[in-house]
């Protein structure tokens, strides 16, 4: 297969195989800054691939970005692929991204929950969880954003294996979660943790498992508002900014609470378009506008991280 051809349609939804093929293509086409790493495998033994954007150096400070932990939120996996291409093409062209990558690495997990993603394509478009088997239950899967070791099992997560917000038998029980935790802990120098979800247009910071303000509340709130303003500047899409608890509802075991409590100050969760007309079925024609505006918000945060070492 000709790896130099560029036939991937960023304005369409794709199967997991197509996305994974495009990761190879990006790593091949932009081999000077992009490489593909496998950080583990899913419950059903699918690889978990991360794209590493780096200009060299060892153990540089890094930004973590993931998408698709809730499998049905298809616009997030699609946006992540667009963002991967954007980072690769902007390096050397956009002074801001160039200076960022000359100082830091970016790790991008485009499909955090590959089993769930395949299941949404083959069996149930509305599937949100992993596909692990739950002992003693006929129901499958754990909500991987209730499975992190952050107030695990507390309010806003279900103990019922049949629920869409089932927290799982123990923190990190899901290999998809455990793989990310191990990767970030082993890396040891991740300075920002950004996660993409979709539906309802929110930009949130910790906490979700408790309704108290994080120590860095003022800075995170101001940065979140600046990012939301950048998002709005392109197409007028409005994001609500706040902590998970005050913005939506109390929810325990979430990823950004774990990252924040483990010393990653700049921890944010994005909820991309839309506000209800399509739900998780955002038309493909909106993928690129969504990715474009999201990129502006991400860039605002990443620039702040670059300029605010801690």
């Amino acid at each position, binding site marked *: 297969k000709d790896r130099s051809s560029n036939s991937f*349609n960023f304005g*369409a*939804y794709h199967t997991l195989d197509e996305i994974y093929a495009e990761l190879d293509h990006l790593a091949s086409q932009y081999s000077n800054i992009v490489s593909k790493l496998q950080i583990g495998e899913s419950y059903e033994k699918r690889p978990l691939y991360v794209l590493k954007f780096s200009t060299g150096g060892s153990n540089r400070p890094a930004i973590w970005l993931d998408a698709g932990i809730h499998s049905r939120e298809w616009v997030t996996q699609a946006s992540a692929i667009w963002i991967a291409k954007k980072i690769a093409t902007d390096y050397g062209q956009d002074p801001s991204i160039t200076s960022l990558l000359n100082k830091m690495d970016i790790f991008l997990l485009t499909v955090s929950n590959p089993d769930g993603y395949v299941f949404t394509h*083959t*069996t*149930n*478009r*509305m599937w949100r969880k992993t596909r692990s088997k739950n002992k003693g239950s006929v129901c499958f899967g754990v909500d991987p954003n209730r499975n992190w070791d952050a107030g695990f099992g507390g309010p806003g997560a279900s103990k*019922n294996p*049949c629920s*869409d917000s089932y927290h799982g038998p123990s923190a990190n029980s899901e290999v998809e979660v455990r793989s990310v935790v191990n990767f970030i802990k082993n890396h040891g120098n991740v300075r920002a943790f950004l996660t993409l979800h979709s*539906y*309802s247009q929110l930009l949130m910071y910790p906490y979700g498992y408790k309704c108290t303000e994080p120590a860095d509340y003022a800075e995170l709130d101001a940065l979140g508002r600046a990012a939301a303003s950048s998002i709005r500047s392109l197409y007028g899409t409005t994001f609500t900014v706040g902590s998970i608890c005050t913005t*939506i*509802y*109390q929810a325990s075991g979430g990823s950004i609470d774990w990252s924040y409590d483990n010393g990653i100050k700049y921890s944010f969760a994005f909820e991309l378009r839309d506000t*209800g*007309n*399509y*739900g*998780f*079925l955002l*038309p*493909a024609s909106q993928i690129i506008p969504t990715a474009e505006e999201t990129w502006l918000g991400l860039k605002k945060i990443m620039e702040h991280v670059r300029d605010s070492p801690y």
Partner: protein
Amino acid sequence: LQTFVGHQVLRIKTRNEEEVKKLQLLESLEHLELDFWRNPSTPAHPVDVRVPANNVQAVKAFLESYGIEYSILIEDLQVVLDQEKQDMEYNQQ
């Protein structure tokens, strides 16, 4: 392949904490197989919920009996899914 013919997505607007509590009760009724896209939290935040076709009437009756305001966001989810599938097939061609 699981289909969603007749599934509706409702947007529910609550006016006070009491109505939020009613929705939290609705959320706990597992036999209705509701899929909350936005869970009940505070009166300021609307609730979006996917309701299977055979439970649409029961849920609407529940809401109406308590005078809770709602609107239909998606009339038939399968219609939207079919459109999405068609778009993907077109793209693959």
